[in-house]
């Protein structure tokens, strides 16, 4: 039984607690000087990979956990966090600051690296909190011809293969597949650990290999053009009514009854 070689793509996004602001030109979200951190769903992916290793959930063991990031120069901070949480090493595909990479291009880069690094499991977040595409995991599976178990809330290994409990509307659905496969992580999969200072120090010694999209033979050409970015309309306040008659009158007024 071969060991797991897990690739975990992680993305540097605007921190979840920051309120995003649209730039003056209405073309994008303002990112200059804004706090950034690892996509919360990606934290779940790193945590799950490390837990599979620590708990020895898979009989073949975990040979390597490789973190990958595609983004501007500051993305290395996110890779350092991933390694502080337990990833063994990282791969960094640098792009220009402000340049957006579409999920299809990300998927193609991941495909090349899966082939290069002999990966048998890709564990990614179900979506990123900035563009919310939710496509990367599925695209990778499609490109590789692998199965994809998305919105995972539980991952277990057994005689029959890899069992994944997925979160679906109204409950969960369990699927089983063989390696190699793609798993995308959902909120209730685990509780990501905080990187302690000693681990952050240790992570500084771990390797980050840099490679470009060109070297991987992947074009970052965009297929979509963003025309406009606007904030959602402000919430209209509710109105108060005196009594039940007042409420019925108001509903009639609004044409609801």
């Amino acid at each position, binding site marked *: 039984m071969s060991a797991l070689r897990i690739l975990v793509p992680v993305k540097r996004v605007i921190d*979840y*607690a920051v309120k995003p602001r649209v730039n003056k030109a209405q073309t994008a979200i303002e990112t200059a000087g804004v706090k950034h951190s690892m996509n*919360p769903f990606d934290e779940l992916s790193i945590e799950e990979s490390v837990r599979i290793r620590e708990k020895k959930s898979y009989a073949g063991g975990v040979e390597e956990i490789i973190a990958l990031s595609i983004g501007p120069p500051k993305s290395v901070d996110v890779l350092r966090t991933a390694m502080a949480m337990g990833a063994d090493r990282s791969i960094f595909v640098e792009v220009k600051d402000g340049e957006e990479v579409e999920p299809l291009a990300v998927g193609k880069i991941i495909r090349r690296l899966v082939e290069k690094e002999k990966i048998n499991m890709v564990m990614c977040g179900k*979506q990123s*909190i900035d563009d919310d595409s939710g496509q990367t995991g599925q695209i990778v599976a499609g490109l590789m011809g692998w199965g994809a178990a998305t919105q995972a809330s539980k991952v277990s290994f057994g005689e029959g293969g890899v069992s994944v409990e997925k979160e679906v*509307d*109204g409950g969960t659905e369990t699927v089983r597949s063989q390696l190699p496969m793609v798993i995308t992580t959902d*909120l209730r999969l685990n*509780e*990501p650990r*905080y990187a*302690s*200072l000693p681990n952050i120090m240790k992570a500084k010694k771990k390797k980050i290999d840099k490679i470009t999209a060109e070297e991987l033979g992947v074009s970052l050409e965009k297929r979509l053009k963003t025309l406009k970015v606007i904030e959602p309309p402000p919430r209209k306040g509710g109105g108060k009514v005196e009594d039940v008659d007042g409420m019925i009158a108001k509903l009639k007024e609004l044409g609801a009854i």
Partner: protein
Amino acid sequence: MTTPNPALRREVIAIYKELLNLGKAYPLGYDYFRPRLHKAFASNASLTEEKDIRKGVERAEFVKKEIEALYYLKKYRSMRQRYDKL
């Protein structure tokens, strides 16, 4: 200042540094957190008995776990509110 137990001193400094690092993400701001953390440790600077210092370190470890739980819950609840709409 002569320290009777340098290993224990290192432990105290280590937990202080961990808490300081955690404080960088504190909702009310690092500037709120840092002086309060410093005061909390400084008020116990006169302790000499090993068991008292140990108790202090344990309390600091407890506070660290509480802060980590606070951060996790805040993030979990925000993410759930945004992404769990059925």
